């Protein structure tokens, strides 16, 4: 449904997105995960046709975003980050304005507005001024304006940001209910959010894809392969040689040594093998001193730790 290839967007000297390639299948919910400033919003703005990419192309539903912008706009619903409002309008006035832009006749328009008010739980607030709405309700109005023309594709930029846990759950349920009917691409910087709502995840950082897969496979990847860092007393060469022979160890590197008697070593292990007991045993058998031993995750987890703020438990 969505095919982005080699997307690059430069703002002067800054590369916000560089050579990003991905695709989303029909009816799929894709999570776009990355820290703030990773290029998520820029990518979504390109998809929504707000500005063109510097290089690369986007096809949505078979239309090119540059050449058939109008056709694409008819097929997408876009919720920008921090949904902007016209504070002077009421919820119904606003949604009716958006709906009339979609060329519905009056009757159809009123039906669509009513329908979307119902879907997004806005019935009780339909006559409130937008500026009087709480953040959660504003976000629902944002979703409502993206849904009012019943688009095939939804582009949601941080749909749950700034909401309380109850509102987050409601919005997530709403998004999940689109699975199979609409193609959804949503961005977030919260890891559990994607595992709860998305079928596939794309992790991006500094404008590049760093990992891709189902939430389950990514989680497995993170928890398996790891580094073990040890600090031991003994002749470094002997330690390296002995520990290389331990089954499950792929590589061992000395990171730091002090006067040839003590050193810090980084041991890379095979996926899903915990070698810590064997390492400890080998050191004790050789009568060296084991000072510290620590399990360190592989680069993917490094990425997560650096890039992705863990959501506080609800």
């Amino acid at each position: 449904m969505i095919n982005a290839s080699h997307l690059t967007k430069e703002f002067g000297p800054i590369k916000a997105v560089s050579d990003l390639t991905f695709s989303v299948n029909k009816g799929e919910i894709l999570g776009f995960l990355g820290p703030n400033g990773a290029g998520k919003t820029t990518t979504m703005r390109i998809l929504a046709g707000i500005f063109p990419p510097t290089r690369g192309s986007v096809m949505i539903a078979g239309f090119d975003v540059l050449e058939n912008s109008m056709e694409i706009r008819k097929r997408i619903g876009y919720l920008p980050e921090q949904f902007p409002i016209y504070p002077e309008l009421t919820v119904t006035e606003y949604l009716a304005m958006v709906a009339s832009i979609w060329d519905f006749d009056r009757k159809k328009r009123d039906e669509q507005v009513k329908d979307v008010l119902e879907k997004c739980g806005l019935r009780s607030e339909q006559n409130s001024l937008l500026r009087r709405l709480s953040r959660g309700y504003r976000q629902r109005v944002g979703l409502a304006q993206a849904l009012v023309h019943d688009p095939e594709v939804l582009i949601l930029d941080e749909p749950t940001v700034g909401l309380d846990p109850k509102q987050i759950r409601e919005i997530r349920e709403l998004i999940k209910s689109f699975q199979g009917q609409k193609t959804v691409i949503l961005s977030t910087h919260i890891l559990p959010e994607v595992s709860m709502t998305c079928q596939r995840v794309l992790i991006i950082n500094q404008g590049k894809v760093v990992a891709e897969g189902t939430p389950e496979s990514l989680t497995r990847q993170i928890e398996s392969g790891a580094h073990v860092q040890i600090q031991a007393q003994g002749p470094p060469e002997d330690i390296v040689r002995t520990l290389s022979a331990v089954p499950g160890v792929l590589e061992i590197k000395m990171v730091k040594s002090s006067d040839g008697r003590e050193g810090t070593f980084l041991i890379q292990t095979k996926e899903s093998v915990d070698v810590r007991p064997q390492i400890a045993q080998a050191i004790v058998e050789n009568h060296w001193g084991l000072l510290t031993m620590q399990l360190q995750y592989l680069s993917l987890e490094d990425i997560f730790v650096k890039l992705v703020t863990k959501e506080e438990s609800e």
Partner: protein
Amino acid sequence: MKIFPLLNKELKIAFSSATAYVTFTVFLLIVGYLFVGQSLMLAKESFAYGATGTSVMDAIFRVLFHDAAVILLFLTPAMTMRLLAEEKRAGTLELLLTYPLNDLEIILAKFCSAFASVVIFLLPTILYSIFIQRFAPIEWSVLATQYLGILLLCGSYIAVGLWASHLTDNQIVAATLTIGILLGLWLIAWIGQSSPLASWSVVLGQLSILNHFDSFSKGVLNTSDITFYLLLILFFLYVTLKGLESRSWWGRSE
């Protein structure tokens, strides 16, 4: 046409803020004050010297429309500053650009909404002519020309204001820039009258936005003056459209 939902929205927003009502009140107070003053002056003169042959069109309305033109030069920027600057600041423009609207429709809706506001401002002034008609004959064709002139003039003010509003996301900057440009377009004729530039005075006078209003205020329909205003409006709408289409105003904001 998809302009109407947008136009409807613009007018709703314009008349839900204090700006429109304050501008409206200030305009009517000043114009009303000038109207009363001008009428009293004429009454006193005719009482002292008898009927002098000066028509009310010359003595009252011509002066009044000239004053209104200057007052509106300062007041229309208050109506236009919001148009694009505020949508840019709030981020609502980003959303508008994802709807199936082309940029021309957005610009025309903005222009028409400001123009409609000005028409609403001017409507009550029709009462002046109805009032005067009880004492002296009104030349309705002259009055119609005067109204046409002021509408064209205000259209130019609005086009300049809309252009200034698309440059920035700050309403004050937009308003100040608009007033600056309009004052410049007014006073440009004055420098032409100074001696070193005397040979240019005709050209510079032709550029002056208020000089072209003279014929209208006298009740004379002059094609070149109408063309001047229409060209000015089209020019500023065109550069606004090009500016909006280029999206170059879009900074990185993430």
